[in-house]
């Protein structure tokens, strides 16, 4: 479904020439739940941005269902079937939750259909549907709304960048259930999650470890996960409590 071929990404800043990604190649097969993990600052979020079109790679190609999408805009990729949940959800003054879900669905969406998406991410729909997506919402609420917009798009490929970032432990337990049910109901679609949470890695079919801008390991969960337990690539819930 998705293939990155020899993708590199460089930037120039005060420190000079910085290589964020170096020759990254991998595939996300159909009906597959892939988790990218690895230490902070290793380039994981940049991979999500490169897939969604927010960043353009310095070198390499990106193929989606065999089509080269490297030079396509964010909008074109979204229309082809790639959706992207940002690590830091965005706030909008005046735009209500239902507006965002309708934009995501790309069609008129009934109130009850919108409520279904919110219920799936564990929000009591009636309390949220007409709320503005502004600073009155907590980080955890915004994160769940962000995920609901991705569900509403019903894309072939959904990319989630650290869905657990900025949410409390209680919300995190619910979030795991959301991803478990997405894994169970996966049909002709695929899911790519960037996370270092052990609980999310446990749902994965395939795990890719990215460190220092390169893939250090990749393969089925059974092969990769045991070696990650106890490292910063697979944090348990207690580690999360400490981090928060």
């Amino acid at each position, binding site marked *: 479904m998705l293939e990155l071929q020899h993708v590199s990404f460089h930037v120039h800043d005060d420190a000079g020439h910085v290589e964020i990604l170096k020759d990254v190649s991998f595939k996300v097969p159909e009906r597959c739940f892939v988790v990218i993990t690895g230490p902070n600052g290793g380039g994981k979020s940049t991979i999500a941005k490169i897939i969604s079109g927010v960043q353009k790679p310095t070198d390499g190609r990106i193929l989606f269902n065999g089509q080269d999408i490297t030079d396509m805009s964010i909008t074109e990729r979204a229309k082809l079937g790639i959706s992207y949940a940002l690590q830091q959800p965005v706030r909008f003054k005046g735009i209500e939750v239902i507006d965002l879900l309708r934009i995501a669905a790309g069609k008129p969406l009934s109130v009850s259909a919108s409520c279904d998406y919110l219920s799936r991410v564990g929000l009591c729909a009636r309390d949220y549907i007409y709320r503005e997506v502004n600073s009155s919402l907590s980080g955890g609420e915004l994160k769940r709304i962000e995920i609901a917009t991705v569900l509403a*798009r019903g894309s072939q490929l959904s990319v989630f960048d650290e869905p657990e970032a900025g949410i409390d432990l209680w919300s995190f337990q619910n979030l795991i259930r959301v991803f478990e049910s997405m894994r169970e109901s996966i049909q002709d679609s695929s899911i790519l999650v960037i996370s270092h949470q052990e609980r999310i890695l446990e749902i994965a079919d395939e795990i890719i470890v990215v460190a220092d801008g390169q893939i250090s390991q990749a393969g089925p969960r059974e092969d990769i996960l045991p070696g990650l337990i106890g490292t910063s690539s697979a944090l348990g819930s207690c580690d999360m409590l400490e981090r928060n």
Partner: protein
Amino acid sequence: MAQIDTIQQRMLMEVADLHEIPEGAFNIRANGVSTARRSTAHIEITSKPEGAGIDVRIAPGTKNESVHIPVVLSMSGLQETVYNDFFIGEDSDVLIVAGCGIHNSGAEDSEHDGIHRFYVGKNARVRYVEKHYGEGDGTGKRILNPGTEVYMEEGSWAEMEMVQIRGVDSTERMTKAVLAEGAHLVIKERLMTHGEQHAVSTIRAELNGKDSSADIVSRSVARDRSFQKFDACITGNAPCHGHTECDSIIMDEGRILAVPQLEANDLNAELIHEAAIGKIAGDQLIKLMTLGLTESEAEEQIISGFLK
């Protein structure tokens, strides 16, 4: 009764959502004269001498009634100043919808300066909605200078919603409110300017009575090379609560000057001001584009939500 032409009809739709003759009391002013009017059992509309405006008298205790007083100008070069006074009786609860549309397809400036004075009686509630709209491809300017004065008696409540979204070249708006004990005022201003437009909004609220409160919120968007000035001052002369917020988006080469002022003359006056000006955030555009909108569709969504 004079006829209303199709241009005037369209503008009535824009400024007052009027598709046909409204229910309740109304007065329609087109090109300087009243073309249609209806008073009701509780709401009396009378002309001031020499056509300089109208008096609207709402009887005490009138509930759930409305008054529509739209104005349309479709003749180039027409300049008028109109004084409309509203006497809102004690314990009443009414909706007043005003609005002015200018269609100028000529070379001369068209100008409507509407001065609205509200005398809100004890414990009365009034919601006032005012929309401004301009159109026409003439070189003459479309100018609107509204003045609004609100005198609020004890325990009264007023919500003023003032919207100007497009087509008006020049606006100088002056809003003044004086509040007695327990009175509560809400002002919601929505403004979008484009082209070379120039808009100034000045608001002065005097909180003179104990436990009076005012909440003034302005949201605006300045596009192209337009200029806006927002100048709001809340004066607390008694134990009171005042909040003013000015939130603006600038685009292109738009310019905005926000002048927040608070004046506390009583130890127990609690006054707050918030102001923010900035361009549309890049991550907002990115988020909407990941949902399939183009960059310009995303901009429109953000602005229409912001000005809602």
